[in-house]
């Protein structure tokens, strides 16, 4: 029996923030909520924490109905995007604070604070105050406080969003390890698809108040059920275009068509939508069954280890993502190579066709 949302719904006035949702999180697992701002992640977290009540439906945890249980009586820890610590307490006392409230013996408090501080590399900072710490250390302190009380449920609402990217990389790497051996269910909200992938575990894809798909993170990334699921779980955005299947050919435009891969060969003729992830569109011909497409370069973004080329393909924006540094000038005509063997096909209503 895990953390469950049963027929949960949240309306504020005439507006639905969460449409009727059923979701059973993985017990003792790492569960990610992935979606853009206002997709419903924070609302779901508040319903689980008990800081907000559902309009209808129930929250269950390990066979107990929590819906009417007040927030103080749910054994839940919360970490937010903003670093929230007690400014006038030392790091030690900040971490110890949930244990002080629970009236735990002095020796046990000390043992647990030291162990948690060690895990989060805060031991040298225990005597300092939060304003003497870097942003990364402040958020480590907030995470330590959430860990120290051995909560049943730990809710992390975009905890890395306010950190610069190197600190984000470091904490993202550590977080799944911190929770791996603990007896608690983690729910982690993020707007970033790559972060969801690297955290692993299970992911729920959210869009405008609805769960679009839930499952093991890598699985649903590779096997989205619908175009919408593929779009929610793609950064940069997945490239899409209308295509026609005609006999054994898939036709993108007058000049671009290719032989349907075996898995799509038996499909009925007619209109489909193709979805092809940016890393399957490359600036150099990878060989195999790739198809050349031509467009005007809008910009090449460089991250240092990857190049993201935005280009205009017959009126829609497509994106290519390649390793290393590839630069094109703005406005240049460029040929890019789409690895259509990895393309996904969707019905006109958005459902994935047999894969």
């Amino acid at each position, binding site marked *: 029996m895990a953390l469950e949302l049963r027929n949960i719904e949240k309306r504020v006035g005439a507006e639905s923030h969460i449409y009727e949702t059923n979701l059973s999180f993985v017990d003792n697992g790492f569960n990610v909520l992935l979606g853009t701002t206002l997709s419903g992640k924070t609302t779901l977290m508040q319903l689980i924490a008990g800081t907000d009540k559902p309009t209808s439906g129930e929250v269950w945890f390990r066979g107990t109905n929590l819906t009417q249980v007040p927030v103080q009586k749910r054994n839940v820890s919360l970490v937010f995007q903003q670093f929230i610590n007690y400014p006038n307490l030392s790091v030690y006392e900040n971490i110890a604070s949930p244990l002080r409230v629970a009236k735990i013996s002095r020796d046990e408090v000390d043992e647990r604070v030291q162990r948690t501080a060690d895990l989060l590399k805060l031991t040298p900072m225990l005597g300092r105050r939060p304003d003497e710490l870097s942003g990364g250390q402040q958020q480590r302190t907030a995470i330590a406080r959430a860990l120290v009380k051995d909560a049943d449920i730990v809710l992390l609402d975009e905890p890395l969003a306010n950190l*610069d*990217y*190197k600190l984000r*990389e470091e904490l993202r*790497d550590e977080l799944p390890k911190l929770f791996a051996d603990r007896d608690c269910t983690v729910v982690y909200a993020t*707007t970033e*698809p*790559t972060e969801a*992938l*690297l955290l*692993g575990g299970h992911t729920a894809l959210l869009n405008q108040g609805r769960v679009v798909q839930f499952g093991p*993170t*890598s699985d649903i*990334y590779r096997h989205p059920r619908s175009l919408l699921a593929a779009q929610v779980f793609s950064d940069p955005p997945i490239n899409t275009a209308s295509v026609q299947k005609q006999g054994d050919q898939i036709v993108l435009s007058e000049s671009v068509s290719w032989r349907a891969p075996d898995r799509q060969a038996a499909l009925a003729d007619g209109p489909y939508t193709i979805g092809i*992830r940016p*890393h399957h569109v490359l600036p150099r011909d990878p060989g195999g069954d790739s198809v050349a497409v031509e467009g005007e370069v*809008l*910009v*090449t*973004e*460089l*991250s*240092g*280890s990857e190049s*993201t080329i*935005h280009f205009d393909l017959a009126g829609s924006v497509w994106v290519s*993502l390649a*390793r*290393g*540094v590839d*630069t094109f*000038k*703005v*406005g240049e005509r460029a040929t890019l190579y789409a690895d259509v063997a990895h393309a996904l096909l969707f019905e006109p209503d958005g459902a994935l066709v047999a894969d």
Partner: protein
Amino acid sequence: MAKITLEHLRHSYMANPPTEADWALRRLDIDWDDGGAYALLGPSGCGKTTLLNIVSGLLKPTEGRVLFDDLDVTDLPPDQRQIAQVFQFPVIYDTMTVYGNLAFPLRNRNVPEKEVDQRVRQIADMLDLTDRLDSRASGLTADGKQKISLGRGLVRSDVNVIMFDEPLTVIDPHLKWVLRSKLKELHQEVGRTMIYVTHDQTEALTFADRVVVMNLGEVVQIGTPVELFERPEHTFVGHFIGSPGMNVLPCELADGGASIEGHRVTVANASALNEPDGVLEIGIRPEFVSFADQGLPVDVVRVSDAGRYRIVDTRLGAHSIKLLVREGESVPSERAYLRFDPERTRVYCDSRVLT
């Protein structure tokens, strides 16, 4: 337009800095060519804002000179340096129209109305603001307002340099690429010297032809995006640019070669290994490490799926070595051997590459 030279620059906010660490800028010599697109990149506290303020004239350096072409401007106040600046937050007049905002820097300098009109329309055209010229600036979105700020920076034809200080901070992440594209295009069109200050490596590498990377008050490397990725001259550059950053491993020298934990490694800068005095390390990016039949013996400890590739974390004794494995390629389960690309493996002494 001008070439900018920073000569033997040093700056401290203290009257008599007692130690080397009390210098915000330790020693700088930089030449910025006329018409170039440059970025100043580094973490917070690295000295980039101090440097920006010295170029604009808000701060007088403790030592050294600032030259615009051959004119020494070190003692000139900001308003006599002919500089345009674009800041983090849009600096515009809400009550004026878009036209009025763009015209302001020109009218302020008594430019004839006919020329004002011509310049404003030209800039508005570049920024796709022509159909908004008569609208009130207050009605625009954050990215619309920031476009006006960019336009105000670009509208004067008499400036020596345009400086951008984290100009995309307030822009929605999904729209950033559009403004990045605009900035690149504008530089291509106007060919003015531009300096872009940021802590974000994607911002810097996307905008600039050459990037000045700073850390702890020093320039650690000046290079093109390709050079910073393929030939980091300092371990900080390897770490800060690229995700995950460069592997940095302690090494020993023996028999004219380098080895890690007693295992010989072929390096690109072998000819430079003549009795260096200092801490020796080998640097290799995860992109240039692969699994092989023989080589460095490691234990595979963790695999993270990033979708387009997997990050494999391995251990050689106490040292972590990360490598990237493409989608679809296999990863050995426990014991494995690693190969370092010899062209991309370098020895560093006290963090600087040996040459």
